[in-house]
C-alpha cells in the first residue's frame, strides 16, 4: 500500500483540558489512507479521550483536527460520523433492543447515506463479513461478548468510513477470537480504510500496525514503525515503570516489549 502524500486525518497540536488537567496534551498526528496505526499507552494516558475528540464527543480545547483537507474541529459527532470517521466504543454500545441487523443498518443509513432497502443489503453484507449473518434477527442485547464486539465492527463498517477507530475491540476475547478479529481488521484495511487500533494487547498491535503512536500523560511519547517503537526505552518505562524496564534489560538483553 503506497502512502498518499496528503494525510486523510491530521491532528494539529490538539489539547483537551479537564478542570485544569491536560488529558490530551499538544498531540499532532498524521494518518494516511489504508494504513493501520496502533495507538497505545498505559491506563489514563488519554487514548479514549483522543478518540472522543476526533469523533466530536468532546470538544477540543485548542488545536485543530483536519479531515480530508477540511477542519472538523468543532463539528458535531453526527456530522463527523457522516463525513466518514467511524469509531467503536470501549464499552460496547449497541441499540440493545433492536436486532443485530437493525443495529448494522443504523450505521448504513445515516453515515452510509443509504435508503432503507440499500441499507439492509449493505448491512447483510457487513454481517456476512463479520460472520454474524446467522444471528441477524437476534436482539443485540442477547449477544455474547465476542459477537457484540463484532457487531460494533459491522456497524462501523456499514458506515462507509474512511477512518475507523477501534477502541479496545479485542478486550475480553479469547485467543482464537482475537486471531479472527485480526484477520478481519486486516481485510478491512485492504479496502483502503485507515484504521486506528487502540489496544492494551501488544500482540494485536504488533500483528496489525505498521506504525504505532504511544501516548503517555496525554502527550505523544513515541511514534514510528511498530517494532522500533516497541524497543523505545521511553515506551517501556511509560508502560511498566522504571523497575520493569531495568529488569527487562537485564533478562532479555534487548529491551523489547513483548505481548503482555
Amino acid at each position, binding site marked *: 500500500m503506497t502512502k498518499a502524500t496528503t494525510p486523510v486525518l491530521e491532528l494539529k497540536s490538539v489539547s483537551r483540558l479537564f478542570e485544569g488537567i491536560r488529558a490530551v496534551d499538544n498531540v499532532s498526528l498524521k494518518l494516511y489512507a489504508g494504513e493501520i496505526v496502533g495507538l497505545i499507552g498505559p491506563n489514563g494516558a488519554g487514548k479514549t479521550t483522543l478518540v472522543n475528540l476526533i469523533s466530536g*464527543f468532546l470538544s477540543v480545547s485548542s488545536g485543530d483536527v483536519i479531515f480530508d483537507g477540511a477542519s472538523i474541529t468543532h463539528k458535531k459527532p*453526527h456530522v463527523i460520523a457522516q463525513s466518514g470517521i467511524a469509531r467503536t466504543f470501549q464499552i460496547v454500545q449497541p*441499540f*440493545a433492543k433492536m436486532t443485530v441487523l437493525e443495529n448494522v443498518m*443504523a450505521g448504513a*443509513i445515516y453515515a452510509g447515506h443509504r*435508503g432503507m432497502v440499500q441499507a439492509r443489503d449493505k448491512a447483510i453484507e457487513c454481517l456476512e463479513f463479520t460472520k454474524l449473518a446467522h444471528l441477524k434477527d437476534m436482539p443485540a442485547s442477547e449477544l455474547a461478548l465476542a459477537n457484540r464486539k463484532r457487531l460494533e465492527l459491522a456497524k462501523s463498517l456499514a458506515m462507509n468510513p474512511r477512518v475507523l477507530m477501534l477502541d479496545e475491540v479485542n478486550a475480553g476475547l479469547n485467543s482464537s477470537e482475537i486471531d479472527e478479529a485480526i484477520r478481519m481488521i486486516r481485510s478491512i484495511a485492504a479496502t483502503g480504510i485507515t484504521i486506528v487500533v487502540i489496544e492494551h494487547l501488544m500482540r494485536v498491535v504488533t500483528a496489525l500496525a505498521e506504525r504505532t503512536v504511544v501516548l503517555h500523560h496525554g502527550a505523544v511519547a513515541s511514534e514510528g514503525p511498530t517494532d522500533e517503537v516497541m524497543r523505545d526505552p521511553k515506551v517501556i518505562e511509560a508502560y511498566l515503570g522504571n523497575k520493569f524496564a531495568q529488569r527487562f534489560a537485564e533478562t532479555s538483553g534487548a529491551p523489547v516489549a513483548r505481548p503482555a
Partner: protein
Amino acid sequence: MIIDRAFALKIAFGVLLFACGAGLSAVLDNYYLQVGTTLAMLCALCWAWNIVGGYMGYPALCMISFFGIGAYAGGIAQAAGVSESLAWLIAAGVGALFALLLGVPLLRLKGHYFAVGTIASVEVLREVANNWEQLTGGAVGLNLPIHAGSPDEVGRFFYLAMLGLAFLAFLITALVDRTKFGFGLRCIRQNEQAASMVGIDVFKYKVGAFVLTGVLGAATGAIYASMVAFLEPKDAFNLIMTIEIPVMVMLGGMGTIFGPLIGGVSYVILKEFVWAYFINWHSGILGLIVVTVIYFLPVGVLGLTWRDIFKKLGASKSTRPATSDIARSTS
C-alpha cells in the same frame, strides 16, 4: 422505506378499518357519532404522542399543551372571522411553532427533568389562557362561531373531520415506523450517544419528532374547539388527560403502529365500564387500571408474547432488583 408483507397487511388493515369507520357515519345516530368522534380524537392524540413517547422514548407530558394551544389558536382565529378549515391549518402551524419553541430548550433535558418541564408547560399555559383576557377571553371563555347545519350534518361533519385527522396520524405513524426518520428515533430511544455515532443528527431528529407531535396535537385541538364552539382554560388544558394519553399508549404498546388505537379504544371502554358501574370509585379504579397496566403490560398489548408472560411470572417472585439491574439503570 422497507415494505414487507406484514407491513403491507397492517396498512391495508388500517385503511380498511378507517374506511369502515367512515362508512359507519352513514348509519350511526348522532350520539354514537359523538362517541366515535371522541374515540377518533383520543386515538389521534395517542398516535401523535406515540411519535415522541413511543418511538423516541421521551416521557413527554405536554400532549395537552399542544391540544390546548391548537384549540385556542383555532378558536381565536375563528372568532376573528377566519374560516373553519383555514383556522385548523393555522392551529397546526401554531402548534408546530410552539412545539419548536418548547422543544428546543426542553429536548436538551433527559428523564424526569424533561417530564417535569413538559408537565409544567400545561400549568403555565392554563394560567396564561386564564389571564390573557384580551386574547383568550380568560376564565369567562371564548365563543366560536357555531358550525351551521342540521344536527345530523354537523355530527357527521365533525366525526369525519376527526376520523380524517386520526387517519392522517395513522399514516404518519406508519411512515415513521418504516422510514429513516422513524428508524433514527428508535435508535435515539435506545442510546443517544450511539445514535449520534452512527451519524444521526440527534437533536434535529428529536425536535422534528416533537414538532410532528405538536402539529397533530394542535390540529386535534382545533377541530375539538370548532366542535364544542366554546373554550375554557380548564377544559382546553386538562391536566389529567396529559397523563391519560401516555397510559393509553402504554396499554396498547408504545412505538407500534396499532398500539395507540388498541390502547385508546380499550382504555375508553374500560373507563366507560368503570364509570357506569362504580361511579363513586371510578377514579380509584382507573388508578388500579393504570397500576395493572404497568405491572402486567409494560410493553402494551401489542408487545406481549407468551415468553414475556412467563418471564414476568418468574421475575415477580423476587422483589429485589438484581445488582446488575441497578447498575444498568444508573449507567
